């Protein structure tokens, strides 16, 4: 029989917040990146005011800012889940357009009550996600290819359904959601915030959420641990579809007139927000908090540039530079020892 000295458990001091070697930790989690993101948001906000002749810090502008970040925020949340599991969803822009026009059409053309139309829009988003997810999970097709194809397919269907815009401005119950403001905060933004909270809880405290991150890290290990990888992957795409569906409803409600071209290229902003928020496009790394930061940074930047009337092309230049800087900063921490 082996006689080995019993291991003594020496109690080590735990502090809630520790700073060491350039890492900031709160309750054992590395929040250095989030802290830096937060600093960036503050910095942007601070220089924004003088650069816009004091318009930035007005209540009116803050309300606009919040409303403007709702669509990207919702899409980024859904995108985060897909990215965490190692995929990507390029079809969310088209899903936004599809939900918007289905909801509008259902109300205007088919006479459904507004809440039914909204539900319909969201459900169709979930269905598209189900299809994309199934193709990726069961047929093992590359997410980029599948969602790229879906993006085109869905956009085509939108035009098949309606070549012209559908107007909902005459239906106040339809437009209420997108324009209503409570205490200066748009209802649509509140809904986005609720989604983020639910998303965070789901990601951090449910088995399905935890296994999503694990799948992005190592599919085979997860499979051998008895978790259905297919179910996990499909769930992420369904979540993305639902988020896009809700985003589409919000946008439709806000605009009052839905063009079939609605929603294009929103997917890239969603991906950018996730990346700026620290998510690794290869999967397995990322947080809801980080994505929120990414959305904030993009929204403040957009607002600032719009107020200064910068050409859209400069905005692309800036966005590109920020993404590269962020990826550079992350690159060290993502190399394994």
């Amino acid at each position, binding site marked *: *029989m*082996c*006689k*080995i*000295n019993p*291991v003594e*458990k*020496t109690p*080590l001091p735990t502090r809630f917040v520790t700073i*060491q*070697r350039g890492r900031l930790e709160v309750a*054992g*989690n590395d929040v250095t990146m989030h802290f830096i993101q937060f600093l960036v948001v503050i910095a942007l906000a601070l220089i924004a005011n003088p650069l816009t002749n004091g318009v930035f810090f007005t209540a009116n502008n803050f309300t606009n800012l919040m409303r403007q970040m709702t669509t990207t925020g919702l899409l980024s949340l859904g995108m985060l889940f897909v990215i965490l599991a190692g995929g990507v969803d390029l079809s969310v822009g088209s899903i936004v357009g599809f939900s918007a026009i289905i909801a509008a059409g259902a109300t205007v053309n088919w006479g459904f009550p507004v809440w039914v139309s909204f539900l319909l829009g969201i459900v169709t988003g979930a269905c598209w996600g189900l299809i994309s997810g199934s193709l990726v999970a069961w047929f093992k097709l590359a997410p980029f290819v599948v969602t790229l194809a879906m993006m085109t397919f869905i956009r085509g269907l939108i035009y098949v359904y309606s070549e012209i815009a559908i107007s909902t401005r005459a239906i106040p119950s339809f437009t209420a959601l997108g324009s209503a403001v409570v205490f200066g905060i748009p209802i649509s933004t509140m809904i986005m915030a609720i989604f983020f909270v639910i998303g965070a809880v789901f990601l951090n*405290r*449910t*088995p399905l959420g*935890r*296994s999503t*991150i*694990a799948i992005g*890290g*190592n599919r*085979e*290990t*997860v*499979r*051998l*641990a*008895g*978790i*259905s990888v297919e179910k996990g992957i499909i769930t992420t795409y369904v979540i993305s579809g639902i988020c896009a569906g809700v985003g589409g409803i919000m946008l439709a409600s806000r605009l009052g007139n839905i063009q079939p071209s609605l929603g294009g290229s929103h997917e890239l902003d969603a991906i950018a927000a996730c990346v700026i928020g620290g998510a690794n496009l290869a999967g*397995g*790394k990322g947080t809801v908090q980080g994505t929120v930061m990414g959305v904030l940074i993009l929204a403040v930047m957009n607002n600032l540039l719009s107020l200064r009337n910068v050409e859209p092309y400069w905005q692309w230049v800036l966005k590109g530079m920020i993404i590269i800087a962020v990826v550079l900063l992350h690159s060290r921490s993502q190399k*394994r*020892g």
Partner: protein
Amino acid sequence: MSLVLREIRKSYGRAEVLRGVSLGAGYGQVVAIVGANGAGKSTLIKILAGAVPKDSGDLELDGRPLELKGPRDAIRQGICTVYQELSLVTELSVAENLLMGVLPKRRGLIDWSAARARAKEILTSIRFDAIDPAAKIRDLSIAKQQMVEIAKALVSKPRILVLDEPSAVLSGSDLDSLYDLVVQLRDQGTLVLYVSHRLKEVLNLADRVVVMKDGQFVAELDPKEATEDDIITLMAGRQIEAIYPERREGSGVPTLTVGRLTRVGEFDDVSFQLRSGEILSIFGLVGSGRSELVETIFGARRPHSGSISIGGVAKRFNAPANAIKTGLALVTEDRQRTGLVLGLKVCENINLATMHGLLLSMASRRFDSELMINKLSIKPERCRNMEAWQLSGGNQQKVVISKWLLTNPSILILDEPTRGVDMATRVDIYQKIDELAVTGISILMVSSDLTEAVSMADRVLVMRNGRVVKELDAARTSEDEVLAYAIGGHYV
């Protein structure tokens, strides 16, 4: 003295990994370096390979100071390193990997026949001729891949060759080829630095044995006189009386019955019975179908014919989830590829197989992982929130085992549980396995380590070419007999 290390120090942040390593070695020697994981061996190797700069201390080559500016510089200076992790490009062929960067060209295009010929030349000169230069790396077994890795290091004819656990994935004739090669190189005047956990092999092969502990060389032993126990004591810094626990009889109640299990091309007509409290080891050369067999029992692969019964009830598993529910657990042979999610925290990995319900309880997850870290002595202690890739191999293996222990298995399958694990941790793991058997858990253990397979088990199943060739009672057999059956001879 051809290679001199003097007071080499290296720290990562506040952790001092090397605390003044000194060594002198001449050409034409085999110097074995042994030490527990975390003793600093990998860091030392990386410094010699030019991959990592030292903080202080001197390196001298042939009497001149040696400053390595990077891995290519090291190779140019004549120091080649073969790491434990394979660095081959799996989609390319053996020849392309061997001659990477120096492929022969003819009129601007790659001359494939010349490349193959040159690769063949290299392989033959070190007597690894069983390898086909045109074969793609991913079609080769791990053992053959390792041999290509070694061959690659020899292309530039280095004066100093550093080998990190070269024998971990080898067995049988491949192992012999490796030993012959080391001897050949030594006789040709190469200095071979040989890092290994296999103490017996080290004592057989080396001219000098150096023991590393806590960032320093603590002792040098003469292999002709030292014993394994001497080395272990020096490595662990404490007295370890026996490596392997004493065997005991199982209770006899059959828990797992495998009948004529077959997967075409992998294993054929395998039948055996596993009893409660018993340790059954499966020994065989690499490629004998053992891993495929246990994966099939676990439900990760589907059998083509045959039966599996658990507790007398026939079962058909179409996914690991079913097997787990029935009480099986599989610790796979490649912990990095299929046992861990390296980017996740240790506590996440430990809880990976036991996430149930709608909402997870953070408190019980924390409790479970702390419990396991404690019970299996996973180091470092506060590793719960560390990411899995930061742990040493032995501790990573313990994490995987913890994950499965949490599922409360009645049948625990271990595939190469101590591969690449240092001796002190091995002892921990053997101890744990024995404890589990005592509580009535049936243990199926695949092993390529002959001593481990015979010493740990109650019975040994020998497999060759996908078939069970012999079942032996461990108490009444010997390592030679087991090996003989595994190779294909008859034991007299």
